[in-house]
C-alpha cells in the first residue's frame, strides 16, 4: 500500500516537471513595471535639484564646487527605489532602469556622480544649464537678445521671417512698471 502511494506521489511530481529557476546561470527578465536602480541621462539634466529635494532617503546630494560646476551624487546604498525622483524630474532625465544585480563588497560601487556645467543668467545671476536643450539658449538661436524690448516682442518669430512692420508697431513697448 505504501508503495502505491509513493508511485502516486512520483507521478504527481512528474506532471509539473522541474519548476526551479536556473537563475544565476540563465538571466531571468524582470516584470515590465519593475523599478530598478535609477539612471541619469546627463544630456537632459538641467540641475534643478528637484530629485534631491524629493528623495525620501536623501540619496541624491548636490554639491556646488564653484559658480559654474554643480556635482550631483547618487548613493544607492540606502535607496528604496521608490521612483519619486523620476516622477518629479521636469525633463524626465531620470528613469528607473531594470538593473537589480547590485550586490557588492563595497558600498561605493553603487554610486553615480554627475558633473553639470552651469552658466549664470545675465539678469538674475542664478545658474542655468549650458546645454542647447535649454529654453533660453533655444530663444537665443531664434534671435533673442537680452535687454532689447523691441526684439523681445518678436521672440516667437524666426529671424528670417522678421517683419519690419511688426517691429515698428512694437517700438514703443515699455518695460512693465511696478
Amino acid at each position, binding site marked *: 500500500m505504501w508503495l502505491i502511494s509513493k508511485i502516486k506521489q512520483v507521478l504527481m511530481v512528474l506532471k509539473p516537471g522541474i519548476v526551479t*529557476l536556473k*537563475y544565476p546561470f540563465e538571466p531571468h527578465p524582470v516584470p515590465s513595471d519593475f523599478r530598478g536602480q535609477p539612471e541619469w541621462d546627463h544630456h537632459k539634466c538641467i540641475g534643478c535639484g528637484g530629485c534631491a529635494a524629493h528623495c525620501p532617503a536623501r540619496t541624491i546630494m548636490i554639491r556646488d564646487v564653484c559658480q*559654474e560646476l554643480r556635482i550631483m551624487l547618487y548613493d*544607492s546604498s*540606502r535607496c528604496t527605489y521608490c521612483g519619486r525622483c523620476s516622477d518629479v524630474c521636469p525633463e524626465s532625465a531620470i528613469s528607473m532602469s531594470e538593473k537589480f544585480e*547590485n550586490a557588492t*563588497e563595497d558600498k561605493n*560601487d553603487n554610486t553615480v556622480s554627475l558633473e553639470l*556645467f552651469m552658466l549664470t543668467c545675465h539678469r538674475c545671476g542664478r545658474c542655468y544649464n549650458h546645454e542647447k536643450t535649454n529654453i533660453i539658449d533655444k530663444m537665443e538661436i531664434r534671435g533673442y537678445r537680452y535687454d532689447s524690448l523691441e526684439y523681445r516682442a518678436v521672440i516667437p518669430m524666426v529671424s528670417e521671417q522678421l517683419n519690419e512692420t511688426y517691429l515698428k508697431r512694437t517700438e514703443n513697448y515699455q518695460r512693465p512698471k511696478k
Partner: protein
Amino acid sequence: MLSGLSKKIFPKSLWIYHCNSGACNGCDIEILNVLTPYYDVERFGMKLVASPRHADVMLISGAVTRPTLPLVKKAYDAIPAPKLVFAIGSCAVGGGCWFDTYNVSGGADKAVPVNYFIPGCPPRPEAIIYGVALALGLVDKKASPVELKQVEFPIDMYERNRAWEDRNAIYKLLDN
C-alpha cells in the same frame, strides 16, 4: 579576491543564520522566498539554521535599531570563526529612510563588519541569489561606480584650485 578566499574557506555547504534587526519583514519574506522550490537556494547547499552557533553566514535585514544593537553583536560573536555577513535590503546596507534617525544605528556595517551588501527595498529573490552566487564566485560583479560629465569643463577649475592652493602654501610658509 574575497570570493576566491571564501571558496577555500567554505568548500562545503553554507549554513545561514537569519537575523532580523528591526526590519519591516519585507526582506525576511524575500529571504524565505529564496528557500522555496521555485528559487531554491538549497541547490547551492544553503540551509537556514536556528542557532548562530551552527551557522557560517549571517544575514542581517533591517536597520540595526538601538534595542537590537547589542543582540546583533552577541549573535555575531556566537558564530564560529570563518564567517560571512550579508546585509540584505536598503535598511541593512545604508540605513534606508531611517539613516539619520535617533533610534537607528544606520546600517549593519555600523554594528558588525559586513562582507556583502545586497541593496533593494526589498531586494528581489533573484538579487539575493545573485549576491549569494557572487559570494560563492559563480557570477561576476556587475556594479561599478559611474561618473557622468555633461560637458568637459572649459576652464580647468581643478587646475585653478590647485594653483590657488600652491600660492596659498607660500603664505602658510610665511606664517610659520
